[in-house]
């Protein structure tokens, strides 16, 4: 029977957690010592089943100590990429490296990876501590080390008090913590997380997300490949994000850059659900800005991809970057008709029709929200919006 536990109770006292984290970091530090590059490398990795290509020519480097999130819709190939690193999928072509070692032909048990999956995959007949000890015993680690490291890892994830419990006696969040402790116990070179929070409810997911972020702050040497379809998880945790579609990496870059300046339509829509308006680039302006025409309106936006004058492109406006027009300003104004207004507790979501295009705006709750069918003018800062090429670039950016 799962026992509900408060988030405070889940955390062991700070001193012991800090001790556990220090121990882990100290053990992991040699992996980075001597300037040796440790991370994950995909070199032209293709995976095909029969004639069906599920991962196409993936080339990607995960630098040591960073978190890279692969996001994309179902069937985009992100999990296949992770499974290829784990050794459960054999590439049809290309090489995979972990650190400075080519592991393409290495058996999964010899790759020195930690893996956490969506459904936790705890061994049901083993107690939490036995689950955590499993990898250590499989590697022939001495009993003394097992006795020392198991509580250390459980303490790291705030589960020391639950060491004797069976998985069925733990809640979903607690099970996932044990799964993380189990993966970390073997001091892996890389940690593979395959949608680790998908099976949790929204509240626990948020709490676990904070915990994961904190864990990585405390274990900065750990290289993590994180697969998710949830953009919030990716943006919260990842240093870099790769966006996948139909087996291909369509965008890769630093999380903030990718969010602010998506290189193509799919990335803009998938990461952050941007508003995309078709515009024509007019002429460059100072400060990396460009003038564009949208219908009769002339607008200004950043042009990070250097789109040439006269090109047809998309104006990417995030819903939270739009604001209700105040005063008499005439620059960067979009006028539309309100289609719907939704109060969502901490914000208002307003849908407008702007020259036949649907536009979404989110803002702090309004005292007097507009009515559906009324005209509304919106403004935006040109530095907050970006021009996106209508066709995807040849090579992923970043």
């Amino acid at each position: 029977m799962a026992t509900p536990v408060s988030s405070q109770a889940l955390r062991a006292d700070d001193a012991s957690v800090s001790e556990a984290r220090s121990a882990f970091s100290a053990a992991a530090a040699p992996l980075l010592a001597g300037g040796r590059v440790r991370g994950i490398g995909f070199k032209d990795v293709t995976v095909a089943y029969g004639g069906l290509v599920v991962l196409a020519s993936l080339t990607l480097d995960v630098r040591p100590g960073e978190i890279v999130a692969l996001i994309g819709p179902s069937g985009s190939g992100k999990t296949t990429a992770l499974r290829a690193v784990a050794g459960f999928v054999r590439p049809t072509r290309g090489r995979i490296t972990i650190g400075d070692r080519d592991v393409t032909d290495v058996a999964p048990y010899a790759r020195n990876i930690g893996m956490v999956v969506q459904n936790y995959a705890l061994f049901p007949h083993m107690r939490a501590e036995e689950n955590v000890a499993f990898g250590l015993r499989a590697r022939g680690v001495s009993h003394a080390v097992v006795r020392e490291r198991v509580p250390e890892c459980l303490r790291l994830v705030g589960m020391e008090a639950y060491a004797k419990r069976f998985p069925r006696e733990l809640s979903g969040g607690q099970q996932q913590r044990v799964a993380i402790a189990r993966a970390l116990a073997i001091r892996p070179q890389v940690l593979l997380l395959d949608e680790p929070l998908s099976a949790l409810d929204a509240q626990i997911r948020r709490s676990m997300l904070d915990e994961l972020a904190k864990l990585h702050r405390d274990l900065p040497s750990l290289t993590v490949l994180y697969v998710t379809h949830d953009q919030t998880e990716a943006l919260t945790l990842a240093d870099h994000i790769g966006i996948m579609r139909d087996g291909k990496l369509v965008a890769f870059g630093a999380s903030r850059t990718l969010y602010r300046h998506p290189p193509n339509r799919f990335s803009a829509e998938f990461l952050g659900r941007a508003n995309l308006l078709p515009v024509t680039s007019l002429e460059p302006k100072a400060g990396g800005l460009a003038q564009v025409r949208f219908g009769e309106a002339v607008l200004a936006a950043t042009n990070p991809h250097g789109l040439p004058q006269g090109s047809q492109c998309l104006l990417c406006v995030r819903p939270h970057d739009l604001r209700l027009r105040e005063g008499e300003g005439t620059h960067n104004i979009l006028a539309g008709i309100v289609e719907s207004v939704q109060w969502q507790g901490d914000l208002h979501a307003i849908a407008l029709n702007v020259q036949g295009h649907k536009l979404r705006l989110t803002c702090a709750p309004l005292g007097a929200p507009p009515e559906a069918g009324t005209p509304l003018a919106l403004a935006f800062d040109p530095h907050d919006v970006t021009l996106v090429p209508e066709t995807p670039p040849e090579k992923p950016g970043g």
Partner: protein
Amino acid sequence: MADLAVTSSPGSVRLPPGIWAVPPLLVLGALFFYPLSLILRQALFGDEGAFSLAHFGEVVGSRLFLDGLYHTLVIAVSATAGCLLLGFVLSLVIAFVPFPGAKLVGRLIDTFIALPTFLVALAFTFIYGSSGLLNESLMRLLDLSLPPVDFLYSQWGVILSEITVYTPFVMRPLLAAFSLVEASQIEVASSLGAKPMRIVRQIILPAALPALIAGGSLCLLLTVNEFGIVLFIGAKDVITLPLLIYDKAIQEFDYTTACIIAVVNVALSLGLYSLYRVAVAHLAGSRAGLV
């Protein structure tokens, strides 16, 4: 439901609720308990009709009976062990080693359950018998005058036949149990550094334990009572309890002795069945967190 149907229709005759237990009890009584009670009566009262345990003790202490009991247990335990081993390995391959036609192989093995047991003994005679395929080939090849392979008409022939016949009884529950083992558990175990043998031992085997016990117990029950294979093989000096009962009742018309041996055989079967129930209940309970 039945009670409701009877009591809710106005004007209909009200029947006592327990009445619906009578027909199945009558059938069970007529077909099972009554014949069994006759056997028990014959074993304890004999032809004279006077209760005595003297003959019972005489039969149970006889060399013939003890030999029969010994062979029954040795064959049943060996065949069950063989079934468990072979069934576990075959199920493991079918469930976890992807190969084309795995499902077909599983279904083919299933069909064995539908076949009469002595058919395998017959088939083995054609293959391993004195004039069987194997011996004839070896004799021709090595220019021998006597068949070199001579295990079929022994205890080993019976055990091999029983293993062949009853292995599917272990595989069926095992394959069902294996289908419930999450692939992610195996993958995670592998990523943690566990080699295949450790995964089988520490992840798959514990998950399959209830199925193994259930299948093994069923095998033990069936092999303890196996008659057709032992009779068909006709192994020299291999007399089991069922065969002994047959000999005494049909060949020697010694019904009292046959009934005494039958009572012991039934007690043995019920004992094994009780053990099986206890084991399954304990395992199921502990897995549900109840025991």
